[in-house]
C-alpha cells in the first residue's frame, strides 16, 4: 500500500473527527487545536509522500495493513459510549476550588458546580430551598437510586471523572440509564441511613438531546 495514502487516511481521520464533532465526545476542548494541527501535518506529509512514491515499489509491513484496517474501522464506527457504564467504574472526584459556585446565583450553577459546592460545604441546610436548573445524564450505580450526573475530563475519555447529584424522583418518573435530562426544581434536605444530605426535588423534568460538548461542565 502506498505510504502517502496511509498518511492521508490517518490525517483524514483526525480532521473528520473534529469536523463531525466526534472529538467533543472524546477529548477535552483544550487539546482540539493540537489534534487538528497534527491532522493537517499528516495530510501535508501524505500529499508529499504520495508524489514521491509514484512509480516506486516498496514493501508494506503487515503492521501498516493492520493500522489501516483499524483506521477504516474508526471511520466507519463512530464512538457511542455509555456514560453511565463509564461513570459506574470510577470514583467521584472534582478537585477544583469551589469559589465560582459560591459567587453564582443558585439557578445559574451547573451540575458540576453544585457538586463542588456541596463537597466544599457539606452542610445541606445552607442550600435548602435554593432553585436548581441543571442538565445531565441518568447514572445508575449498583445498589443505589439513579442520580443525575456529568462527566468531566482532564485529557480524554480515559480519565473521565463523574459527578452526580441525588434526585427525589417523582413516583411516575422512570429515568432511563444514559438519558439526558434537564431538571428544574429546588434543593431539599433528606435523611438517608442516618445522614442528612442535599437532594434535588424536580418540578419539571425534560428529555433533551446529548449536548454537543457533553464532557465540558
Amino acid at each position, binding site marked *: 500500500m502506498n*505510504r502517502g495514502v*496511509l*498518511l492521508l487516511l*490517518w490525517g483524514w481521520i*483526525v480532521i473528520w*473527527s473534529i469536523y463531525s464533532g*466526534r*472529538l467533543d*465526545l*472524546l*477529548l477535552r476542548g483544550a*487539546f482540539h487545536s*493540537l*489534534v487538528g*494541527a*497534527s491532522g493537517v*501535518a*499528516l495530510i501535508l*506529509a501524505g500529499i*508529499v*509522500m504520495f508524489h*514521491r512514491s509514484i512509480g516506486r515499489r516498496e514493501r508494506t*509491513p503487515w*503492521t*501498516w495493513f*493492520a*493500522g489501516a484496517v*483499524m483506521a477504516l474501522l*474508526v471511520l466507519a*464506527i463512530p*464512538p*457511542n*459510549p*455509555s456514560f453511565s*457504564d*463509564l461513570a*459506574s*467504574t*470510577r*470514583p467521584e*472526584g472534582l*478537585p477544583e476550588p469551589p469559589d465560582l459556585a459560591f459567587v453564582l446565583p443558585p439557578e445559574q450553577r451547573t451540575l458540576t458546580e453544585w457538586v463542588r459546592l456541596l463537597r466544599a460545604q457539606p452542610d445541606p441546610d445552607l442550600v435548602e430551598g435554593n432553585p436548581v436548573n441543571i442538565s445531565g445524564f441518568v447514572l445508575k450505580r449498583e445498589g443505589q437510586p439513579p442520580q443525575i450526573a456529568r462527566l468531566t475530563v*482532564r*485529557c*480524554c*475519555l*480515559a*480519565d473521565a*471523572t463523574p459527578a452526580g447529584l441525588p434526585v427525589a424522583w417523582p413516583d411516575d418518573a422512570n429515568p432511563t440509564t444514559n438519558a439526558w435530562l434537564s431538571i428544574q426544581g429546588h434543593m431539599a434536605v433528606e435523611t438517608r441511613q442516618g445522614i442528612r444530605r442535599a437532594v434535588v426535588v424536580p418540578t419539571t423534568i425534560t428529555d433533551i438531546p446529548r449536548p454537543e460538548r457533553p464532557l465540558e461542565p
Partner: protein
Amino acid sequence: MATAWAIFQGLLLESLPFLLLGVLIAGLARWLVPQGTWIERLPKNPVLAPITGALMGFALPACECGNVPVARRLLASGAPLGTAFGFLFAAPVLNPIVLASTWAAFPDQRWLLIARPLGAFLLAVLLSLLLTRLSETQLLERALLSERRMSQPLSNLGLLERSSGLIGAPLDTKAPATPKRVSLGMVLDQSSREFLDLLALLVLGCVIAALVQTWLPRSWLLAVGSAPTLSILALMVLAIVVSVCSSVDAFLALGFAAQVTPGALLAFLLLGPVVDLKLAGLFTVLLTPKAIAITATAASLGVLLIGQWVNLWQL
C-alpha cells in the same frame, strides 16, 4: 464494548499528536545536525551518560509517546546506550511541559514538584545502569541493532558482534570525511516510515489499555488507598492501566490525590511515564522482550521503594 471503543478512540487521538511531535523532533535533529558530530561528543561514562540523556529532556520536550522515536533515532545514530536510555526514561518527566503541568495541578504540594523530577532522574539512572550491563545483542531490537551497527565504525564492535562476513575484513580506521547533511526528502521518507511503524504499535497499546480500563473498576484499586504499601501497589497498577500521557497525568492524579497516600501519588506519577500498556507496544521497536521485562520489573521495584520511603517520611 461501545464504551471500550470510545475510550480507545479517545486515547489514540490524544496520543497521536504527541507521537507525531516526537517523530518530527527526531527527523529535524537528523536533518539539522549532520550524523556523527554531536553524537560522538556525548559522554560514554556509565554514570555521566544517563545524566546527560536525562537532561536532554529539557531541550526536546515530549511525552513518552514522543520520546520513543527520539530515543530510537539516538540509538540508531550510534549514541551511547546510557545517554539514550537516560533520555528515554527520564525525559517524559524531566521536561518543561510536564514540570509545568505538575506545578499547575499541585501548587500546594511543593515536595511533589521536587520529588517527581528527582525520582524520575534516579529511576532513569538506575534503569540505564542495569540495562547497559547486557550486551547490545541481548538489549536492542534486531532492526534497530542493524541500523545502529551501520552507523558505528567496525573497530568499535567486538569480534562476536560483527556479522560473520565482516570478520577478517580489513578495518577501516580512517576518520570519516566531513559528514554530509541528509536531504530533507530522505528525512521525510524515514520519518514517515517510523511514524507508521510506531502508530501501529500505539494502536495496539490503546486497544489493550481501553479493554483493561473498561473491565477493571478503578474503585477496586482505590479501595486500598489508605494502606501504606497496598496504596502504592494499587496506584502503580492504575498508572499501567490508564496509560495517559505524562503531560496530563498530574491532572488525572488530582482526582484521587486526597484519597491515597503521598507515596502512592508519587508512584503513579513516576511509573506511568516509564511503563504502561500503551508504551508496551512502542517499546518493541527499541528493546528485546527480555530487556522490556527487565525494564518493567526494575522500574516497578524502584518506584515501590521510592513510594515506601516517601510514605515513611510524609506519613
